[in-house]
């Protein structure tokens, strides 16, 4: 495996140079008796992480180069997994041939007992060039690091300058640039490889003015560091927007409370729907009976206005990739069609919940982790009304333009989510900003209560992260404006 990463902006592709056919033959030849198939996931990832704490002025840079392999062998009722850091030609070969022994040469003492050295498979070493991390130097160049630092500083500077008169702003910025190359090869299907890259900017601000205080945060995800430096200067736009939003929170009045219509402007409701649909429709939850949607396939679970899918194949969306982390092609998986539950999200291990075929949702945080069913991009089909149409039919209620933090109980579907930016709807129009609203409800009631779907689907430009069993993966949202006819709006927690 050779890594050839590149210039400060990760423009060129890293190269994973492996004779996949030969490695696959070795894998197949080494299958133990009773094993059905084997799969090898190889990953290389370069990460540059820049952090600035505006309060102390402290800046830091962390650089990581990670490579690893994860081998799984499938038998009836049993899966064996072997994870190896920093594979070299020799250790990758050893992993394929004798996974029980691979990697243990690093350890001393009893852990090495009984471990034999693997043999050599003719030709493999010659075709697998030595890992060459020196080639990674470009990505860690002085120019690349300086560019990332400058962008973070510019964003933080804009945050302070746009805070408004009389406001004291304290902010922090984190910029992560990552390029990941994966290779999946298995004994029972064709090998695939994919390069995934992104740059994520995370900003936080605390504004204080005349004894009032407001905190807010914002994220932006783009395909590369270069895209942040574009003429549109999206990093500064994000900072200016965040400062303005925090300032509005300083001025916001009390929230209306009680049962009322809630309009989720595009794409603000995506996070909520990801939590109540994404996770609750994952096949592992369903198979365990730990989802309120278990056994509900074919049943009406939502408003007939709602058609919702998972789609990892939409170009340039945050959760998109050519293949999932098991090598299954990215695709659109219908989940709810006109209110009827039609599908679940599965990986290879849970595919028997989805007619025996993985839906391409086997995702993992890194080679260190086993894949599990996860949403890629949540997509809601558009309706025919504009936001103004929907507001015009709503005499009073709450308009949500950004959701904040919250929690969902996967077993019951019960949720509570804070509204980070919202407006009272008065006389069919968005009125005064309100603060402190918390939305409470149950997944099925929320889905059934959708009574309007807008014609304006937009993708969330932020950097949403889905966390499940301590594994974090990025996901995307494409959602038109939605109205829920009746939701419980409460105040902030005590």
């Amino acid at each position, binding site marked *: 495996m050779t890594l050839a990463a590149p210039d400060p902006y990760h423009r060129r592709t890293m190269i994973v140079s492996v004779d996949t056919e030969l490695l696959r033959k070795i894998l197949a030849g080494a299958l133990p008796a009773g094993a059905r198939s084997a799969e090898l996931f190889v990953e290389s990832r370069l990460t540059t992480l820049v952090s600035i704490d505006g309060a102390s002025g402290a800046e830091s*840079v*962390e650089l990581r180069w990670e490579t690893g392999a994860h081998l799984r062998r499938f038998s009836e*009722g049993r899966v064996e997994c072997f994870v190896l850091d920093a594979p070299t030609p020799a250790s990758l070969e050893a992993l394929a041939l004798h996974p029980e022994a691979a990697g243990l040469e690093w*350890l001393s003492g009893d852990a090495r007992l009984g471990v034999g050295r693997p043999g050599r498979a003719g030709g493999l070493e010659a075709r697998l060039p030595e890992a060459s991390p020196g080639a990674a130097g470009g990505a860690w160049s002085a120019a690349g690091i300086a560019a990332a630092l400058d962008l973070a500083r510019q964003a933080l500077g804009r945050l302070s300058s746009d805070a408004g008169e009389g406001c004291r702003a304290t902010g922090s910025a984190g910029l992560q640039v990552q390029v990941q190359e994966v290779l999946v090869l298995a004994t029972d299907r064709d090998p695939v490889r994919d390069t995934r890259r992104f740059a994520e900017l995370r900003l936080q601000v605390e504004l204080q003015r005349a004894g009032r205080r407001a905190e807010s945060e914002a994220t932006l995800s783009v395909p590369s560091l270069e895209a942040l430096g574009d003429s549109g200067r999206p990093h500064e736009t994000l900072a200016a927007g965040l400062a303005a939003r925090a300032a509005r929170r300083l001025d916001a009045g009390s929230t209306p409370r009680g049962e009322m219509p809630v309009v989720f402007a595009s794409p603000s409701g995506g996070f909520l729907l990801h939590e109540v649909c994404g996770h609750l429709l994952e096949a592992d939850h369903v198979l365990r009976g730990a989802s309120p949607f278990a056994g509900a396939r074919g049943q009406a679970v939502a408003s007939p206005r709602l058609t919702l899918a998972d789609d990892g194949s939409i170009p340039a969306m945050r959760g998109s990739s050519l293949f999932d982390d098991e090598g299954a092609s990215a695709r659109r998986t219908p989940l709810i069609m006109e209110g009827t539950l039609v599908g679940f999200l599965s990986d290879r291990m849970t595919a028997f919940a989805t007619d025996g075929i993985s839906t391409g949702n086997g995702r993992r945080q890194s080679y260190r982790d086993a894949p599990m069913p996860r949403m890629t991009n949540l997509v809601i089909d558009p309706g025919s009304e504009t936001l103004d149409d929907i507001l015009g039919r709503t005499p009073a209620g709450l308009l949500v333009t950004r959701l904040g933090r*919250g929690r969902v109980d996967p077993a019951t579907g019960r949720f509570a989510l804070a509204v980070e930016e919202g407006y009272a709807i008065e006389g069919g129009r968005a009125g005064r900003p309100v603060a402190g609203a918390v939305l409470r409800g149950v997944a099925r009631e929320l889905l059934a209560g959708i009574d309007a779907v807008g014609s304006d689907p937009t993708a969330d430009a932020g950097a949403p992260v889905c966390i499940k069993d301590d594994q974090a993966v990025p996901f995307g949202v494409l959602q038109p404006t939605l109205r829920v006819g009746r939701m419980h709006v409460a105040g*902030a927690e*005590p």
Partner: protein
Amino acid sequence: MREAALALVERALAAGAAQAEAFVKVGATRTVRLEAGGGVSWTRRSEGGIALRLFTPEGGAGFAAACGPEPAEPAARSLVQAALHGALPDDAARLPLPGGPAPDARGFGIFDPRLQACAPSDLEGLLDEAASEALRAEPRVRRLDTASLAASSAEVWLANSSGFAGTYKQTLVHIVLGVVAGDGASSVVVRRSRTARSFAAFSPALFGDETARLAATALEGRAAPEGSYPAMLAPAAAAEVLRRFARSITPAWPDPSRPAGSACVTLIDDGRLPGGVASAPFDGEGVPTRRTALVERGAAGRTIHDRRSAAADGGVSTGNASRASFRDPPRRAPSNLFIAPGSAEPGELLAEMRGTGSGLWIQSLRPASSMMPGDTRMTALATGRWVEQGRPGRPIAGALISLPLEGWLPGVRAVGNDLAFGFPAGSFGSPSLLIDSVGVRAP
């Protein structure tokens, strides 16, 4: 590994660094997991990597890390170049790195040879023991939700340009058990985990039994009425609060000008605690670990420092530089943090609630996301029992509690004698605590 670390340090010095340190960690983890579909998955991870931190003559600090504990020539060159390129001004850059002989790694109780040498069948047996007991102990536990057991062993090396070269071995066992309990009308999922340095430190059967009983309480439990109540926190719940509170321990805490806790509170950070999940002979910068009393009988004690915070504060490091993995630079963090036990039995603490009317006995806390950024309160879902006149009553479950962290230590009225660790991160410990007030609202 020692040679690899020393070679990287030498290379950094040759490239112009004023000081350098190399951290190497290698290890293996074996995990058994019962899958949703009824199968078993078995995972063996071989992990290893190296990190370089260097300090430039101009006062900058740079950090870079890579997988593979013995980097080949190009990788080592890349690491040094990257760390130099990323060097930024740092308060600790001009302080000399710790030198001298490395502390003796013996006697810490952090390495269990039996755990290191265990076979997959050993782990399956232990997990099966815990799972079987959970299913046997309580008939309303219908099935497992999740079950996994991981046993890991690792070796750590640290070398620096001041001549320090230290190493130690450690082992860790981590069990997660989730069960589904139901009574026909409703069902609940309860998950617990436990971490220890050795097999001898925990009993799988007892863990399974406790999990089943907690699930039964959660199934029977109803929400507590909204309001503010005195509460007794069981060790698991108190340790969870302490874990959340630890995030707010800045170098400026405790403030010597005011009480940090009530007179019954002594808060200890001990990096040398025998068998402690965070115990080690030296920290992530090579500074010998030690015991630090942050609060002594309510009075402010000393704070904890790594080299950077010590430099800024004009103090010395207390050996509290922690590395989450070889991929992460050392950061100031507590080691084994615990509230020292008192002399009262837990039952005596409950009885002390006799004069306060109603209260809560919180046996388990599941942290919930706070709704507001920057919220300094702990928000969590509680399971336990309602207390009337000092006697435990009906079960409660799903009660959303809110606890202002700034005032929780001054609000401790009594401390039990049942100090325990291992919930769930392992390095936070507490006895049962009687506290003045927690807020409750419907979830």
